[in-house]
Each structure stands twice: as C-alpha cells, then as structure tokens.
C-alpha cells in the first residue's frame, strides 16, 4: 500500500508530556557528609581554614593554599542575612509555594554565608542584617532539604 501525502496531511500534530528522570545518588566524602549529618542532627558544621576562618558549608580544601581541611567545628544555628532576592512567582521546583526570598545567611561563628529560602510575610519584611533561624523538616535524612526553610527572628529571639 503506497500513498503520497503532502507534508501537512497529518492534521493535528500530536504532543504529550514527557518526563525524563535520572535518579542519581552521589557519595559525599567525609566533609560534605559531616555537614549533611549535622543537618540531620539539627546542627551546622563548618571547616576551619588555615587562616582561622570558619567556612560554612565546609570546604574540603583551603581556599588559599589548596591543602586538605580536616578540622570541622560547630557553629550557631542562627545568623544574619547578608544579601537576598525576592521571588515573586515561585515555580514548581522552588522550596516554597508562596512568594519568598532567597537569602545568603551568615551563621553565628561562621565567616562565610550560605544559601537558604526565607519564608516571610512579604518583601518589606526582609532586610540585610535581619536575624534568621532554620525551620527543620520533620523527617530528616541528611540532605539540604532537612532545612525546610528559614524564618525571621524578632528582637526577643522569637520567630516573627
């Protein structure tokens, strides 16, 4: 059976949703592994650099000399916002459904900031220098998602 068609004869072109997922798991090594172990245990750890600075999340190598860093220390579980960006329309893969702020938070005792998602009432509630603390996930497994999100802490130390 042969029939000659023109190239538009198909009529309505078919389309369908397609999801490709690679279920990767990767090994952490002892340094990142310790950081993730800390999240599961609700503590933050950083690595002590050769110049005495505390790097959070911990680095495996000294940023100046490149030598191995082997001393992990616990830092505080509250910190201050060093910079932030408000997300007006979160997309499906963002950690929060409502508008939120990406923040860099420098924990007490740390010398570098780390990224987090801040749940706040609105853009006006967020400010550089504001104190924040983590809200932990109920079920923790040693993953960055063990921090559900961050919230502002008011002057009395209570969550705003």
């Amino acid at each position, binding site marked *: *059976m*042969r*029939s*000659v*068609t*023109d*190239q*538009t*004869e*198909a*009529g*309505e*072109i*078919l*389309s*369908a*949703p*397609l*999801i*490709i*997922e*690679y*279920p*990767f*798991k*990767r*090994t*952490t090594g*002892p*340094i*990142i*592994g*310790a950081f*993730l*172990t*800390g999240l*599961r*245990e609700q*503590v933050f*750890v950083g690595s002590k650099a050769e110049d005495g600075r505390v790097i959070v999340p911990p680095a495996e190598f000294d940023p100046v000399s490149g030598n*191995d860093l*082997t*001393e*992990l*220390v*616990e830092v505080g579980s509250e910190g201050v916002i060093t910079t932030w960006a408000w997300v007006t329309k979160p997309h499906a893969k963002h950690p929060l459904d409502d508008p939120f702020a990406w923040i860099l938070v420098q924990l007490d005792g740390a010398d570098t900031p780390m990224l987090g998602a801040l749940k706040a009432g609105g853009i006006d509630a967020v400010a550089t220098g504001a104190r924040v603390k983590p809200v932990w996930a109920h079920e923790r497994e*040693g*993953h960055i998602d063990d921090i559900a999100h961050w919230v502002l802490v008011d002057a009395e130390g209570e969550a705003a």
Partner: protein
Amino acid sequence: MPEISLPASLQGVEAVRSVRTPAQLDYTFTAGDATTRFLKGITQKKIIGQQATPDSRVYVPPRGADPELGATTPIEVEVAQVGTVTSFCVVNLQFYGSGMEIPYTSALILLDGADLSIMHLIQEIPADQVRIGMRVEAVWRDDADIEPTLESIKWFRPTGEPDDVNVRIPGEKRGTGLGSWVGGVAPTELVVRNPRTGLGGTVADGGEG
C-alpha cells in the same frame, strides 16, 4: 585520606555517606508531522513507513526526511507486522522506572518492507533463545487500549518460521554473521560472530566455531 576531626555533636552518630541528587527534565514532546502520521497509523494497528521516492529506502519509524538523499519522505508505505531480529540485548539488571521482569530482551527488528530497524521487546520466548535472524511478529494490546504510541505493540514474539539466515543490518555491507557460511562458502569480508551459535568469524581466524 587525612584524619577528620568532628565536633562533639557529631561524634558517635552514623555519618551520611551519600545523597540523592535526581535530575528531572519535564517537558512537552511534540511529535511533528512525520511521527504524527506514523502514530496515527498505529491507532489503526498499521505500521506505516515513509520514503522519498518509490525506489528509495523505507524509514520506520519515519522522521520526515531521507538522510541519504536529503529529501522529504512524502510517500507512505504500510510495512509488514512481521520482521527479522537484526540485533538484540538481554537485559539482566533491573533499573529505575522499568516494570519489566528480568531477564528480558530488547531487539532491533527489521520489518518486512522496511529499510530501518525499530527497537522493541521480544517476549514469549526465553531470553537466552533469542537470536539474530529470528522471525518475529507484533503482538498488539487489546483494541480498547490502542493509543498513538509504539507501546500499543506490547512486544514481538517468534512466528515459528525458519530463521532468515541472510538478514543484513540495513545500510551495512557486512553480514550479521549468520548467513556468511551458507552453502559452505567462506566469507570474503569481515563478519560478526554470533555469540549464541558461534557461527561467523573471519577467514583469518579459521572460520566457523
């Protein structure tokens, strides 16, 4: 590995050693004209290839163009629902997202009338009995479950016909190894040894076996 010193809070607790990092691509696949026509044929339980001219290669599944001629493929040709296994792979590892019971066989099948193999499953035969040259036929889903997807063909199964010992890989001048010794004539070109039967080989290595 250097010795790591941990803070007191992490001493004696089980260390995390691995982490989930799935990567997901979530999008809409648009079939385009050629594949749409092919898939609409599938909904009528027809396997329809396309060719550029009445004498040129028949592509199944079609992609709308003949890459040898650089021409569009406006001619539709219904090909047979029986064909020959040109290559296969026995899958012995369960992997994420697969509902198949292992071991199972994934094969390239050259349908009669086509010049390009399609990839599909071989079932209704033990995996270790699948072979190059084996004749197979399409097994469709129930009519009510036919959809515009190649999964409307559940799998291919042996027809029981004699093997096609002359099957060639489409587009390749070389044989698959099976037919190379038919009639006792030694191959004069490089052939591929069939792993199951041991047939094939090259003149240089002494031939069969």
